[in-house]
Structure formats: structure tokens, C-alpha cells
């Protein structure tokens, strides 16, 4: 059996494990859930190691790998923030993770060597960090769906998630800008993905200030829920339905 198939099997197993973990959470078997998620994370990491070996580069260069990173981060952070999230919030995060990982059944699994432009340290610094930021924002959005963001504890948690994500996303944009300057001679171009990344950056940057503005504070949760939609457009919409050069 070749390595590519082994990697794919690892990923498929880890996706099913996340699905099982949802059932365990639902029936409140928390201990099983934890072990299953840890196993799933371990298998996904193995999948990435195999891809890196086969591609001779960081394995974040195609759509399967992109969705798999999001899958990994979402399942990891469902575990990391276990105590701060309600059962239904964890279930929704895990469903999101499962859908992201399920793309393994949809996308063609091909090992394509990365084109020359991607062969730079700025690329692996730019992409996974932005996906980590998406993860924090997704969790903040899901928290806002089920919990009242006006309650201090929830508000602090959401703010913390946004602050983490914003710092990461700003670093990601800086690294992306440096890469753009070295590869295309411009740190910003009118490309749909870049424009929507800027939209996200402005949007969540604005939300860092929302607690200071009385008029908008009561609508905080709705902004975070809208944020989920903006991330989906930035991540999926521009990748599949626009003329972006950042297509998967």
C-alpha cells in the first residue's frame, strides 16, 4: 500500500472519530470523547507528516489539506475550551470540524508538488496562522449563537477569542504581505481573497472596540454570528466562486 493511501486512511479514520465523539458528547461520556479526539488529532497529524514527506514541502497547498487544517484546529479547540463551552456549542464545533474533514470524501486526492511561488517560509507562516484565527472566530461565533454575550463571563471569553484570533490574523496578513512583496512586488492586490481578508480584519478589529460603544454593545452577539458568514465567504466563497488567484 502506498503512503498516500495510508495518509488518506488516517484522515478518514480521524473524521469518523470526530463523528463518534459527537455521540459521546451527546450522551455525556466526556472521558471517551477526550480520548477519541486525542486519537483523531494524532491521526490527522500523521496524515500531515505523510503529505509533507510526499510533497517535499509544508502540506498546506491544496484544498484537501486546507480543509484538513481547519478540521484539526476545530477538533483540538473543542477539547481545549471544553470547560468554557456548553454541550451544544461543542457539538456544533465538532459538526463544523466533521464537515471540514468530510471534504476528504469529495476532493480528489492528488499529490501535486507546490509551484515555485509557494516555496517560501512565508507561505507556511501565512496559511496555518490564518486558519487558526478562523478557528477562534468560529468558536466565538458559535458561543454567541447559544450564549448571551452580555453576561460578563461569556463576553470576556468571546473577547479573548477575538483578541487571540486578531493577533494571529494580523501576523498572518503581515507574513502574507511580505510574501506578496517578495513574490509579486506588491503586499496588496485587488484579488477577492485579499479583499475579503481585509474585510475580516476590519470587521473583527472593529469588534475589539464594541464593548466601548454603548450603542452597538447590545448587538455584539449578532456581529459575531455575522462573522461566521464572512469567514465562510472568505475561506470557501472566494476560493470556489470567484476569480481569485487564491483558488484551491
Amino acid at each position: 500500500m502506498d503512503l498516500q493511501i495510508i495518509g488518506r486512511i488516517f484522515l478518514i479514520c480521524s473524521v469518523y472519530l470526530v463523528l463518534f465523539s459527537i455521540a459521546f458528547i451527546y450522551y455525556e461520556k466526556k472521558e471517551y470523547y477526550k480520548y477519541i479526539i486525542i486519537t483523531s488529532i494524532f491521526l490527522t497529524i500523521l496524515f500531515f507528516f505523510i503529505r509533507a514527506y510526499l510533497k517535499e514541502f509544508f502540506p498546506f497547498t491544496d484544498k484537501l489539506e486546507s480543509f484538513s487544517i481547519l478540521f484539526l484546529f476545530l477538533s483540538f479547540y473543542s477539547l481545549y475550551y471544553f470547560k468554557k463551552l456548553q454541550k451544544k456549542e461543542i457539538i456544533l464545533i465538532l459538526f463544523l470540524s466533521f464537515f471540514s474533514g468530510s471534504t476528504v470524501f469529495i476532493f480528489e486526492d492528488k499529490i501535486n508538488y507546490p509551484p515555485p511561488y509557494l516555496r517560501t517560509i512565508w507561505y507556511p507562516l501565512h496559511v496555518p496562522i490564518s486558519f487558526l484565527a478562523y478557528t477562534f472566530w468560529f468558536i466565538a461565533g458559535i458561543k454567541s449563537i447559544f450564549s448571551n454575550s452580555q453576561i460578563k463571563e461569556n463576553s470576556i471569553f468571546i473577547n479573548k477569542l477575538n483578541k487571540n484570533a486578531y493577533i494571529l490574523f494580523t501576523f498572518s496578513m503581515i507574513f502574507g504581505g511580505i510574501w506578496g512583496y517578495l513574490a509579486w512586488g506588491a503586499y496588496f492586490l485587488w484579488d477577492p481573497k485579499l479583499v475579503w481578508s481585509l474585510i475580516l480584519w476590519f470587521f473583527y478589529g472593529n469588534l475589539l472596540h464594541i464593548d466601548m460603544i454603548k450603542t452597538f454593545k447590545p448587538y455584539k452577539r449578532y456581529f459575531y454570528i455575522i462573522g461566521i458568514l464572512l469567514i465562510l465567504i472568505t475561506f470557501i466563497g472566494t476560493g470556489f466562486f470567484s476569480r481569485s488567484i487564491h483558488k484551491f
Partner: protein
Amino acid sequence: MNKYIKILGDKKAGFILTLLIIILLITGSIVMNFNTDIYPPFFEFDINYFINPFKIVHLWFYCLFITLAIFGINIFFCSLDSLFIFISAEKKDYRKIISFLAHLGLLLALLAHLIEGFFIKTGHIQIGDNPVQINGMGTFYLKSLDKELYHNQKLKDIKAVLAGKDINENIIEKVLSYNEPLILNSGTKEILIQGAAETASGVSLRKEDTNEYILLDYNNNIKTKNGNIFLQGVEKTNSGIWLVYLKFQLKNGTNTQTVITGYKGIEEICEIEEYKKRYICRHISKEIDEEVYFFSDILKKDILTVTTKYNPGVPLALLGIIIMTVSLILQIWQERIIKN
């Protein structure tokens, strides 16, 4: 004074302005996506393109430009407010200085982008082994070119050694690759690899009597009894056939005759009687000035296609990025202090 700073740097106004910017960017993204004839994919930020001439389709951009200008003023005063609060407070709140730095970084990035929008210049040029003068950058030639390939023969990277002199006569030699451009003048000027190719530079002919191979390019000629044979041009047809134009000139410079020699696929053409008079191929000779020549091969050389960029906003953008990075690091550091 403080009152005016607070009004101009009002946070609620800043929040609304940011929402407006977001709405305008979304509008712009949709407009650009569906008007590919006006907005070519992946085009750079050139304000002159938007204002010269004014077009109704650019309305989103004009609104965005004005909103960003007001937003710039707002964050300037907002950050100034943070700075004043930090300076005047007895018990220093370091979050204020972090906020000041973050906003200052953003402001500088916006200003840099404005400068870029007005003054950016892009060009494309091919560089071979002959020195090429690039406007405002210097004179450069391609010293060597190596292609790195994957196992499946797909391109991995290019290592091109570019040598020459910049406009201040400084000698420059730099290895260029896809993510390693030649950066000049504090980053405002760049030469970036776009691609590399082989181009025909001449022809190799075989003399029938001596079986001697003669290499002919633009820098030399073949001396015959009564004149010279020159290389006039080399071109590749759409069907992939190379055509090399040779010119025979008598010593007195008057009587000239153009001879065409061909490469791949030309053999079939050479079978046609009419063409036999004009072409020489590997198996069909041509007599020029009492000597008989056969076509042997095309001479090729490497050529590098590069993009040249001039962007005077780069140093300011870099300063903005540095300040923003410092603010982010301070933010992380401050969070750790609070946590501990």
C-alpha cells in the same frame, strides 16, 4: 484642545466608518468580480486607473477612498487621544500605548498605500546575456540560469544570477529566484522573476565541401568570397517551426539576397519544389556565393522574463508593519503579565 481630539477621534464614529469601509469593500469585491473587462484579475492598487478617467462603475472606489480618508483622520486623533491619556495619567495604563502603536501602524500602512496608489509603476522586460538598461534601476545582464526540477520534471524553482550596475554605478550580482527578487533603493525598486525560457540566438550551418560547422549569430557573420552572410532574424511560427532569416550582402553593399533556413517540421516544406529555391534544410542545400550550405541546428540561449516594480510607499509600509508588530508583541506580553 482635548475636546476637539475627542470629537475627531470619536470611537463610535470610528466604528460606523469601519462598517462603511466593510460594506464598500464587499460592494467593490462584487463589482470587480463581475466586471473582468474593467478590472483585470489580480491587478495592483493604482489610483490613477480609477480616476483617469472617472467612471460610474468605480463609484464604490470613490466612496471607499473618501471613507478611508475620514477614517484615517479619525484613527489619527483616536491614537493621539490614547497617547495623551497615557502621558497625563499618574498610574500608567500600558494598554493605551499599545493601542496608540497599533493605530499608528495602521495609519502608516494606509498612508503607504496611498503613496503606492499614486506612484506605483510596473514593467516587464526580458534579460539575456546582453546588458539591458532598466529605467531608474541600472543595467543588468543574465550571468547564468539554472532550473531546479521535481522528480516529475515540473519546475521547482529558478536560480538566475543577475549581474550589472545600478544607477549609482555600484556593481551588483544577485541570485534571483521566485521568492527572492533583486531589491534596490531601500525596497522601493524591485526586479522579480516572472519566468525563464530558451530563445533562439542563431543558427548552425554545415559547409558541404569541408563538412565544417559554422555558428552564426547576431554578433558575427560568415565571410564569403564576394561578401558576407548575416543573421537577419529568428522566429518561431505558430506551428512550432523555427525560421531563420539570413542575408547575403556583396562587399560593395548593394546586391543582397535573403535566404531562409528552417528547423523542426521544415523538411516537409523543403520537399515542395517552389520552396526548395528559398529554403535550406538538413538535407536540402543552398548555394550562396559559390559555397554550398546545409542547415544544421538552431542555437539557443537562456532568457529571463522579469517584472520591474517601483513603489515609493514601501519604506513607510515597512515602518507601519514594524510598529504594528511591536504593538502585537506588547499585547501578547501584557496579556501574559495579567495572566501571571
